[in-house]
């Protein structure tokens, strides 16, 4: 089981790197998807190796997939709105809420 947890940790760290360094908002959303997948690998691995019998971990992984899809839809709608209003989606130029 430890190998699956290690893979998930590596994937999550790569996702954090993407969120911290990308300027493009779509790139940040893609890195977020990587992190969701890392969390899901953990859930499914725990479901197989630890705990009582049943498939609770897989059920929660399905919920995570659904929430991730909803997040991607709303996030990309916001990206398109930003593109329409700002002609750019670089997040380091978005500072109108900074005082």
């Amino acid at each position, binding site marked *: 089981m430890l190998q699956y947890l290690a*893979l998930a940790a590596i994937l999550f760290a790569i996702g954090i790197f993407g969120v911290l360094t990308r300027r493009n908002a779509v790139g940040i959303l893609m890195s977020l998807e990587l992190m969701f997948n890392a969390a899901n690998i953990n859930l499914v691995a725990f479901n197989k190796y630890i705990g009582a019998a049943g498939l609770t971990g897989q059920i929660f992984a399905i*919920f995570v997939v659904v929430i991730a899809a909803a997040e991607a839809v709303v996030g990309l709608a916001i990206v398109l709105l930003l593109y329409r209003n700002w002609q750019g989606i670089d997040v380091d130029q978005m500072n109108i809420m900074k005082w």
Partner: protein
Amino acid sequence: MEAESSQLVFYLLSFIIVIAAICVVTLKNIFHSALFLILVLFGVAGIYILLNAEFLAAVQVLIYVGAVSVLIIFAIMLTSHLTSRKIKQSNEQVTLAVFICAGFLLASLASIANTVWRITDRPMPEHNTLTIGKLLMNDYVLPFEIVSVVLLAALIGAIVLARKEGT
């Protein structure tokens, strides 16, 4: 024999996943990043199959590879002239981010290695999809309904956000 071959498949899949994920976060051309993201999602579906989660692997391929990545590629295409390879795609904090990620990775690997896991090698349910369906309709019916309301809210929210003003 079976354990050895599944080990081999696991290492192959995780090699593909890690290399493709690094490509996702570092490539200059964001469209190529999206294509490598699809490769990562396929690899994770393979990992699910290794972990006896066949239904989840199918869901992964249908929702992530089929829907989410198409959505991401649409967004990239609609903002296309911003994603040419001449534009710098990363900000000035790359070195700091590498240190943060390495620290996080070391901390989580150390905690994984130091925790005493109570691994029970119990058999998985025979019919994966059947069991998940029964669980969703009995024990988890309330979260199931709530998540469908969340999806509806996200749908309406995306339409309201993305439509033009005054139409």
